[in-house]
């Protein structure tokens, strides 16, 4: 591993890694059962340099903002490296957003270059939002079919310059990436992450979960997400490890990839982890009685032997068939993006497959706490990583309060949102909006949220104000969307739901026709963003002088209603 304390920027560290590990395999790309390609670091460099040179020849200046909207694949990483090599600022966007949402963020970030895939660009180009994206000067698209209409874009594969591109140095305090933690509605939250944020986070994470040449990381979470960017790109690359990309995320091919490529680490969202648990449990239940008894016996021995810390070699011998189903080399599954049920974590740990659950926010780099497995604690999100200071603000008698964090991994601020930044980072402390307590051993337990938002099992942050626009034409006097757990605080982070509060026009009632109209509006949202129920209110909503709804005051009013009877399911 490179000594990152010696580096000023992501680009400088990656540049040296490409030379240091020149002959190691850096990327494997598979499409269903076919392996498409396998490239070494030297080859990666030979593909990235012509792109970087072409960007420079086209006038790409330091600090130019360039966005990538791509599925997980080699060209994502090659493009990102080229941007860093040129001293640019990367704006990684979620390929799963709608074209309209992607345009909103492209405009908000002021990106002048976009690198994307042909199928994504086809949708973006057809969107009416394109006309107002005046800052975007150049679009490069990958894998466009021959003779395809490129809608004004250029082919990524043909955009190549000749000669070595001069490396453009950046400083630790310079912005490396603008990462959107949420907000495609009224107030996009573009986290400005510095080079130092990433360098420090990488040192902290790899001290617990190291990479080295030969380690294979399966990249499933979208690379625009902070976790995959760190453990599916920067972390493995500065250690000479291999990243495996799949061009499809069908469960059968993901399962096959573990065995085919002898995966060492993989990051998953809780939904996928639960799916794996369900599949395994089903197979255990189908075992003949004698075999099942034997399996349960061996598992109980494994539980006893791994109480204080994991013992991978022993677990693999005791429960060989289970480990072989994961390729036999799996050291740890990393789970992130949302709350994971403790019983799911324990299920895997008891099989000798540790799940590194943790807690993080885009605003704080990748992770704030991670389970160090010494011993494994399924009921917590682990201890603060080296360099992270965590405190509980104004704890109640039960020790519960808002989680505050201070470290070198905290973002520089929200793009174009100085007020929001000062509200969120106070005297160097990031106010997370999450509620938790630190136990006597320093483990953090999360118990709920203080903020009006939900996180889905697929790791998506949904803010009510971002989805309200679709309900604007409802025939009601006024409406407001809430996270149900914000209104009625729960000591739980599972099964979070959104509800819409409706104030009907005088004399009207909540009819089946209105219910259908709410459903029709709801169906215009992506499935994970949809509301689950309606709450009817009879008084005018409290508003500010500028007529904005006072959400917190309204929430207090809604909270006086009984939750179970107040929410009318859709």
């Amino acid at each position, binding site marked *: 591993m490179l000594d990152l304390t010696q580096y000023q920027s992501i680009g400088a560290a990656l540049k040296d890694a490409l030379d240091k590990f020149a002959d190691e395999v850096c990327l494997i790309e598979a499409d*269903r059962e076919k392996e498409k390609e396998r490239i070494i670091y030297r080859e990666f460099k030979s593909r990235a340099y012509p792109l970087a040179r072409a960007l420079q020849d086209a006038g790409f200046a330091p600090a130019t903002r360039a966005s990538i909207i791509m*599925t997980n694949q080699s060209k994502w990483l090659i493009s990102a490296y080229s941007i860093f090599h040129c001293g640019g600022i990367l704006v990684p966007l979620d*390929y*799963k957003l*709608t074209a309209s949402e992607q345009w909103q963020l492209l405009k908000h970030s002021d990106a002048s270059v976009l690198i994307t*895939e042909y*199928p*994504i660009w086809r949708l973006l180009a057809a969107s009416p939002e394109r006309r107002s994206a005046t800052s975007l000067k150049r679009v490069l698209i990958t894998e466009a079919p021959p003779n395809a209409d490129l809608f004004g874009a250029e082919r990524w594969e043909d955009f190549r310059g000749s000669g070595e591109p001069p490396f453009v140095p950046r400083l630790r305090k310079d912005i490396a990436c603008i990462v959107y933690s949420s907000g495609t509605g009224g107030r996009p939250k573009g986290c400005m992450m510095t080079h130092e944020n990433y360098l420090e986070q990488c040192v902290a994470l790899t001290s617990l979960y190291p990479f080295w040449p030969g380690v294979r990381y399966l990249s499933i979470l979208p690379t625009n997400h902070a976790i995959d960017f760190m453990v599916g790109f920067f972390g493995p690359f500065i250690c000479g490890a291999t990243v495996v990309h799949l*061009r*499809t*995320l*069908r*469960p*059968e091919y993901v399962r096959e990839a573990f065995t085919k490529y002898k995966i060492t680490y993989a990051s998953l969202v809780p*939904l*996928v982890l639960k*799916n794996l648990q369900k599949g395994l449990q089903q197979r255990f239940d189908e075992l003949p009685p004698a075999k099942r008894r034997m399996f349960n016996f061996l598992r109980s021995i494994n539980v006893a032997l791994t109480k204080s810390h994991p013992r991978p070699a022993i677990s693999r011998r005791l429960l060989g068939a289970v480990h072989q189903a994961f390729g036999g080399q799996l050291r740890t599954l990393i789970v992130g993006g949302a709350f994971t049920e403790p019983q799911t974590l324990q299920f895997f740990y008891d099989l000798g497959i540790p799940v590194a659950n943790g807690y993080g926010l885009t605003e704080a780099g990748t992770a704030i706490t991670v389970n160090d497995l010494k011993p494994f604690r399924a009921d917590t999100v682990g201890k603060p990583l080296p360099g992270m200071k965590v405190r509980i603000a104004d704890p109640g008698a039960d020790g519960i309060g808002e989680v505050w964090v201070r470290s070198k991994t905290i973002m520089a601020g929200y793009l174009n949102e100085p007020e929001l930044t000062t509200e969120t980072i106070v005297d160097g402390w990031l106010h997370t909006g999450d509620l938790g307590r630190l136990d006597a051993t320093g483990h953090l337990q999360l118990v709920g949220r203080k903020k009006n938002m939900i996180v889905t*099992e*697929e790791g998506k942050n949904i803010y009510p104000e971002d989805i309200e626009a679709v309900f604007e034409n409802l025939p009601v006097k006024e409406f407001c969307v809430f996270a149900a757990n914000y209104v009625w605080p729960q000591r739980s982070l599972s099964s979070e739901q959104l509800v819409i509060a409706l104030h009907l026009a005088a004399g009207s009632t909540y009819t089946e026709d209105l219910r259908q109209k709410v459903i029709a509006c709801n*169906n215009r949202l*992506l*499935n*994970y963003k*949809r509301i689950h129920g309606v709450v009817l209110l009879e008084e005018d909503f409290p508003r500010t002088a500028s007529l904005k709804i006072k959400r917190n005051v309204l929430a207090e009013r809604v909270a006086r209603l009984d939750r179970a009877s107040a929410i009318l399911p859709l």
Partner: protein
Amino acid sequence: MRTLQQTTQEVLDLAATHFHVPAGTLAPEDDFFKKLGIDSLQALEMLSRLENHFAIELPDFEVQGVSDFKTLAERIQSRL
């Protein structure tokens, strides 16, 4: 060659069988996430079944953002 109507009906029948829903209760305009109560992984499993049934490959990008049977059937039809 199937018509779009035939393809749509086969999609509905296969989804009903796969998720143990009474035949005839699904309609082309239905949102399959809500109607079947499934998550995104189960939807991907359903796509694999449909691919086998129609002997086609549906790249993930083709079904990105699709949540109703009608659009799904149209995407399948375009690849038949």
